[in-house]
């Protein structure tokens, strides 16, 4: 079976004055299988969020293709795009900012149903109630306002809104990063349950490697706009090949005081993805070290 999403050689550049360019996403190719979670990890500025936003056309790509269910959506016009937007939804990091404080939360969930003409009249309320139950909220909470909800509940509302159009792909852009750990664990369990029930695919954008290890099938490691390692979760976590992946894994604090490691007193930092006029990044060359496990060559 063909993958649900195929990203081919996707590039996104932003001009930043004086002829300089941010190469936010540079030649990224990846696939998301049906019912699969692909995690994209990396540090701030690595381009992981830009990748997600470009995939759902919040930005237009500079070049490259995004094939969703057999259709290249990277060049579709607005009208044609709308039909396909239904199939992929995004959940953002901040559940406080992504709900309108002056409207009952049920309206936020009903909106996509109305936009895509998927329900009418009483049907709308019924479907919204169903969605609320699905994400572990009570149906009559739909008449309450965002400020009456906790952060975790709000994120559940955002998930319900994302699910309203029966999407096949849900992009979670740091969707659990702002939550307290106990709430975070519950929301992750919910997302995994929904995946099992509905056969969803997730593109899970995160900086938190421990969370990614919990919930992903495959992992892509991004560094300065490019993927430097991509493979099955176990391969990435148990047998990381690229030095950046190793460094990232070494840096994660482990919640076990007996596993305390010596920290090298480094001060090197990640360079910026801004390139002055006339220069551009060099493309990495990926090599397959094991089935499905690709690693960028290091010079």
């Amino acid at each position, binding site marked *: 079976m063909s993958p649900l999403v195929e990203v081919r050689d996707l590039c996104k550049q932003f001009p930043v004055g004086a002829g300089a360019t941010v190469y936010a996403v540079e030649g990224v190719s990846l696939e998301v299988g049906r019912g699969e979670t692909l995690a994209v990890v990396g540090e701030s500025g690595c381009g992981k969020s830009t990748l997600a936003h470009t995939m759902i056309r919040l930005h237009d790509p500079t070049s490259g293709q995004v094939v969703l269910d057999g259709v290249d959506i990277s060049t579709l016009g607005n009208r044609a795009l709308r039909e396909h937007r239904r199939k992929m939804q995004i959940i953002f990091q901040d559940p406080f900012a992504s709900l309108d404080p002056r409207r009952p939360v049920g309206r936020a969930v009903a909106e996509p149903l109305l936009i895509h003409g998927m329900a009418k009249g009483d049907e709308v309320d019924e479907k919204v109630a169903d969605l609320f139950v699905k994400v572990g909220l009570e149906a009559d909470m739909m008449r309450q306002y965002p400020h009456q909800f906790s952060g975790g509940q709000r994120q559940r509302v955002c998930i319900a809104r994302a699910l309203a159009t029966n999407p096949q792909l849900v992009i979670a852009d740091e969707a659990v990063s702002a939550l307290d750990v106990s709430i975070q664990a519950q929301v992750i369990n919910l997302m995994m349950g929904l995946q099992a029930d509905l056969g969803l695919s997730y593109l899970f954008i995160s900086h938190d490697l421990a969370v990614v290890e919990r919930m992903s099938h495959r992992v892509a490691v991004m560094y*300065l706009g490019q993927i430097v390692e991509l493979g099955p979760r176990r391969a990435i976590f148990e047998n990381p090949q690229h*030095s950046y992946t190793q460094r990232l894994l070494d840096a994660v604090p482990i919640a076990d005081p007996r596993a305390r490691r010596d920290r090298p007193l480094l001060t090197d930092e990640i*360079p910026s993805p801004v390139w002055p006029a006339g220069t551009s990044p060099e493309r*990495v060359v990926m090599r397959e070290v094991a089935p499905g496990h690709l690693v960028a*060559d*290091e010079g």
Partner: protein
Amino acid sequence: MTVPVTPVSPEQGDLGPPGRQALRLFIRNKAAVFGLILLVAIVFMTLFGSFFYDQDPSRIIARPLQGPGEGDAPAFGTDYLGRDVLAGVVNGGSTSLTVALVAVLLVAVIGVSIGAVSGYYGGWIDVALMRVTEMFQVLPALLFAMVIVALFEPSTRSVSVAIGLASWPQTARLTRAEFLRLKNLEFVKAARASGASDFRIIWGVIFPNALPPLIVSITLIMGAAILFESGLAFLGLGDPNSQSWGLMIGLSRQTFLNGWWTVTFPGMAIFATVLSFSLIGDGLQDAFNPKLRGR
């Protein structure tokens, strides 16, 4: 660590202090630079104009109400008494500019102090100071200024004070808003945590950060104060012993149908001065907030 890509990070340093960036943006703004040149020219004319055009503006030199080029009239004609309009334009700026400058200083001192204290301390101090500010704000500014000038008889000093007292509430509110925004930022908390006193936090920490919008506002108020002074003078509430553009227009209001030049040239001087302040103010606004440009 070896990395597959080695971008040449553009020089991150040497952006310099935030003010220097603003200056660079300001210089690139053509309208603002034009405003600045215009203002410099006006100030130069006011300060040194009499060296180049040495005429006493209060002396009667020719027949009244002669237009430019008529008979023995000077370049800009004569007014209803036969005084030289050009000499008036050249010398009239000093009163207008002095009054506006003093008024704006007063606005800055009163407005910034009240706004800063109000915004920083909050609570009942804020409530009390803001009630006072509102009281001044709801008074019709022109009427209020006229009353003050009338009470203390018209002079450069009373007019300046009147304009200052009528104009500070806007600055106080702006300062307060800036202080409310800035006082909860972490660097203010950090300053407090490092043992800085309230005085130091208000003036050394928060105030420099509140400066950009205040400078913009003060510049625009400067333009408004010149108009205000002209308005008062036009109504006969200027210092009768001084020369001012507003006064020239005011005194000519009976006769200007017989001599357009008596009001047009001083009017243009006022217009040019106010315009220069507006352009500079807008340019500063854009320079301090590049993101807001083109709104």
